[in-house]
């Protein structure tokens, strides 16, 4: 559990001291990373955060199917 939280918090670029890295991420990306980080702070939502992280932060278009699958932990079709 602790490792997952640490891994998720690493994506919270507002806390990242490397300015270049922060600048390379879009504003929306930064906000989404904050969201994933906020989920990860709730122990009941750590797994949800881990599943949502790649869907929201990989820069691809976010689809309803992918989001639902990640949010609810439903198997992919």
């Amino acid at each position, binding site marked *: 559990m602790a490792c997952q939280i640490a891994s998720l918090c690493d994506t919270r670029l507002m806390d990242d001291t490397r*300015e*270049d890295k*922060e*600048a*390379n991420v*879009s*504003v*929306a990306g*930064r*906000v*989404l990373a*904050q*969201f994933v980080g*906020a*989920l990860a702070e*709730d122990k009941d*939502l750590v797994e*949800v955060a881990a599943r*949502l992280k790649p869907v*929201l932060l990989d820069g691809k278009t*976010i*689809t*309803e199917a992918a*989001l*639902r699958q990640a*949010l*609810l932990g439903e198997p992919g079709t």
Partner: protein
Amino acid sequence: MIKVESIRIQEFRGIRDLTVGLASKNYAVCGPNGTGKSGIVDALEFGLTGNISRLSGKGRGDLSVKEHGPHVSIRTKPEKAIVTLVVSIPSLSKTATIVRNIKTSRAPVITPNTPDIRAAFDYVEQHPEFALSRREIIKYVLTEPGERAKELQALLQLDKLETTRALLLKISNACTRELKPLDSARVSSSENLMRALGITELQQASLLAAVNAQRAILDLRPLGKIEDSTSIRDGLETQDAVVSVKVPKAQAKKDIAAATDALSAIVSIDAMQARAAALVTLQNLKDNEARLTDVTRDAMLKAALEFFDEQQCPVCQTPWKPDEFRAVVTAQRKLLEEAAREREEAEKVLSPLIDNLETLPELLSPLASYARNLPSPIDPEALNAMSQEVSRRARIARTFLPLDDTINVLERDITETKAAENLLVQLAAAVEALPEASARDAARDYLTVGQERLEAWRQAVLKHAAAKRKAELAEQVYTVYGDTCDKALEDIYKDVEAEFRALYRTINKDDESTFEAQLTPSLGKLGFEVDFYGKGFFPPGAYHSEGHQDGMGLCLYLALMKHLLGGRFTFAVLDDVLMSVDAGHRREVCSLLKTAFPNTQFVLTTHDNVWLNHMRSSKLLESKSAITFRKWHVDHGPSEWKDIDVWEEIDNFIVLNEIRAAASQLRHYLEYVAAEWSDRLGGRVEYRGDGRYELGDLLPAAIGAMNDLYKKAKAAAQSWGDKARVDELGTLHDAFSGAVGATYIERWQINPAIHYNEWANLRREDFAPVVAAYKELEHLFGCPACGDPLYVVRTGMGKEAVRCACSKVNLNLKVRLKEATLGR
């Protein structure tokens, strides 16, 4: 991000073939309107993004990049319209080339085509906001709050956040909807279980009592408790003569009785009266059915009020007076609110009838199985037909609208009822005729059917619980998302606001050094108010001049870009964005761009040659970092004025005998340089309330300042006993006075009322000496070695020396202390 080394433009927009070397430095494109400046801006945008925003998007009508991007002479050959850019990529310390033609605009040729370089070009393509025109700059400042929120969110590329928000809400709503049928199934399965076990409540104690009574008949050990995996028929398999019964008589009788009751409930007198009452209610609603349909539009009307910009309906753009618009929409919402209440009342009346209809298929389902498994099977079709019909009617009634459909299903008797009733009677008789089970067989059937229904109930409970968890989870995640996003956006706007305030103060430090601004996000809008000299906060267009508004637009854009790109803000095209900024603030704008964004390459377009010179003198541009267009021809494109300074430009006008143009340019230029000289030398200009200083104000002040400085320099040299220096200064002063005197041969420049008339009358030979005199005067305001204008070095309140950039000129103004003391 990138910087542009050079651009070649071929057969593109109004340009036939033009190469511009920008050298990854700030660069200006200057020329009168219609000479081809925008062609370069369009080419930069097209080369880097494949798009020309001037020809695409909202409000562009029939314009398209494909059809109108190529030069008009080759519009059927878009493959010949080519833009080639050589760029430097600071983060990679590499250079690369991108070639794009209009025919295959989405497939540029990149060299070298390596992943890191492709990524750099992809990044630029994703940020077309690097190009900014005045039309765009003003929209951030003067647009309505709702529109501004959209514009700024688009610039900051926040649409992904809204998409995610909408998807999370959709998923949350879907999860809640999916819960309802599972809840019904859970209730239904619990009723089936209780009926099978002959109990009235699903409690551990009552269930155990009923089950253990039957198990006792079969000599099975009593169950101590019922857990998730407990089988109430545990041990039954080990008993002799355990055979599965196809139709458990006792259970079948109970099920037939329940189904008969349910069927009767549908056709009972009570049900008939309830149907009649519901029909009256629905008929009463018929007159207002349109409003009932519109109930779903309430959310839209609510949004319309939120997005109303005090001028136009946000949906159809019809102009409205604010009070009238709000009154109309509020009245509509009130009607809808009333309609929603009426619908809710009607649905309450309908609900028990629909419940009855929905219950029946669940009860008829096992009966069909019994009918098929009897020793003499019975065709269950009548039951199936009844199930289908009541399910159809329940679905229509739940949907509610259109009312005619719901009224129809209530008005019409269910013709399948009679056949179903007959079949139930027939089935009851057949079941009754089955041999009576022994007590042990009955107990065995009880436990077998009970276990089946217990399992079905467990499954229903599990499915419902899982769905409920999902619904709660989806709602919780949506709430966290909303809170996080709202807070993040608020923080973003606060950061942008602070950056904007700092930038604007920098360019207006003379009169608005304590300027404040407020960006206030609220319900999809973004309010923007600015402080007006401490008199309160107002919309930017309320009291600030157009020039100040231009400055605000630029500062807001720069603040947003800094926030959006951070260290990657290395390139921006400012297309005539500062046309209204007055001369007094241009210096500060140049200084801001140069000092606050030292790593950003700005490409600036202007039709104002003086503005260009200002950019040069402020060192925003290097002397060669500009291209000046003189004119444009449809067949040849823009004509460039290479390496021609203002004096050559004026000389050219004289050669062409365009004296009016030459005089205009001279005056324009002299106003600029005289202001510059006065500023550098401390010239005193009589205050003008309107702040519009003209040549007659500025030039005498500059000349007066220079004369005073020569006098001071001579006095200082005298005090030091440096006779040679005194003589040298005397010679310089005489030369300066002579040059000033030469300019007096035509006094036209002093009085604008006179000189405008004089222009029309001046001939080439009359005007050439005027130009020569001022050219010489300009020389004497500058250093003979480096050409830079002279400036005063100050210490505290005193003037210490007159110097130039290369220090070749150094006129000491400080007198010997003793002399100075005696002088007092």
